[in-house]
């Protein structure tokens, strides 16, 4: 039985992995890739100690750092699909069918992209509906595209499209953009970009490929149709926590509630940190720090258990 199973391979997962390995705790880490959400970033400039690094390189650096401790931690390239409470701990089941028994679990699974949930979105995913703008923006050379969402991710998608698309619509649900002022200025200065406020996307049109988009103009109370070939969805993230539903406490955003001092969840023996938790700021450096905080608290928990013959709260 493991002392701790860490789930996640982003900055939080790797930070936790390095710490548990150095503490010689009997540990495993389950992750299907390394790097987390920054993996698709063209340039990360705020990872402390590194002036500039691509998300891909950052992922490699993290994996290398973790693998330096390979003899002290079992690294499973896999996906956790279920965590179950057992009599004396937990069982973590993976996609490949492996079951890991452990005294404690540290959940560091981050979040993934929120979907629009409108007709046409699923059917036309990869056929003009795009969730990775840095990947696919070049495919919209001489085409018209819409970006949904006026936060930083949406503004960056517009920037990714600018060298390629002939026309870009930026649709924002509220009446103001939320992204960085510098990026906003750049976008507003470009004649190719039309910003539409109070726009609620209702339908993505197309048969084989996207041919248009329908939105509700909430100011005028009418439905508008745009002819275009691409829809870039950039409307935030949802926590990756389905596999522990019913086991830990959640807030209304679907984030796991974690004590900010220790990262403990409502379920004794389970800790959570990073974007999957209800941390106020979603940042690589914060996730790494909070994950380490969790490891230190887990270490205290394990030591206390072994010295007293049982943990009582």
């Amino acid at each position: 039985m493991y002392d701790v199973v860490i789930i996640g391979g982003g900055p939080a997962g790797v930070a936790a992995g390095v710490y548990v390995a150095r503490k010689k705790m009997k540990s495993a880490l389950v992750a299907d890739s390394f790097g987390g959400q920054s993996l698709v970033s063209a340039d990360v400039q705020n990872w402390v100690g590194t002036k500039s690094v691509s998300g891909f390189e950052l992922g490699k650096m993290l994996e290398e750092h973790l693998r330096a401790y390979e003899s002290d931690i079992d690294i499973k390239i896999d996906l956790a699909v279920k965590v179950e409470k057992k009599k004396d701990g937990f069982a973590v089941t993976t996609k490949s069918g492996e079951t890991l028994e452990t005294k404690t679990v540290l959940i560091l699974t981050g979040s993934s992209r929120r979907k629009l949930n409108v007709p046409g979105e699923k059917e036309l995913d990869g056929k003009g509906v795009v969730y990775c703008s840095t990947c696919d923006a070049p495919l919209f050379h001489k085409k018209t595209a819409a970006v949904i969402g006026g936060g930083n991710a949406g503004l960056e998608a517009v920037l990714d499209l600018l060298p390629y698309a002939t026309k870009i619509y930026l649709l924002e649900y509220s009446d103001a953009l939320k992204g960085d002022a510098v990026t906003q200025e750049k976008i507003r200065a470009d004649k190719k970009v039309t910003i539409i406020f109070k726009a609620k996307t209702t339908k993505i049109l197309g048969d084989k490929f996207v041919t248009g988009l329908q939105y509700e103009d909430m100011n005028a109370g009418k439905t508008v149709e745009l002819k275009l070939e691409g829809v870039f969805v950039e409307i935030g993230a949802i926590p990756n926590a389905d596999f522990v539903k019913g086991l830990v406490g959640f807030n209304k955003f679907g984030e796991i509630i974690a004590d900010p001092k220790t990262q403990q969840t409502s379920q004794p023996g389970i800790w959570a940190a990073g974007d999957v938790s209800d941390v106020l700021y979603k940042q690589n450096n914060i996730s790494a720090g909070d994950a380490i905080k969790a490891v230190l608290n887990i270490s205290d928990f394990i030591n206390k258990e072994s010295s007293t013959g049982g943990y009582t709260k």
Partner: protein
Amino acid sequence: MKNIIIYSTPTCVYCKMAKDFFQKNNIQYKEFNVAEDEKAREDMINKSHQLGVPVIDVDGEIFVGFNRSELEKAVLGK
């Protein structure tokens, strides 16, 4: 030896992961940059009926995106 083609863009991380996978396993592949190569872009769309990268063609079997276990099966026979 299998004939492998990858359609990619220079900024696409999943394309890099796929190429890394091929290199680590000493597998030769041909790459087309569909950000610039219009003909390759058309080929890619015709093969995959998709507008997204990477598209990987393994002896005519088409993979969209980078799925390590699927590729291992197709390429390494695992």
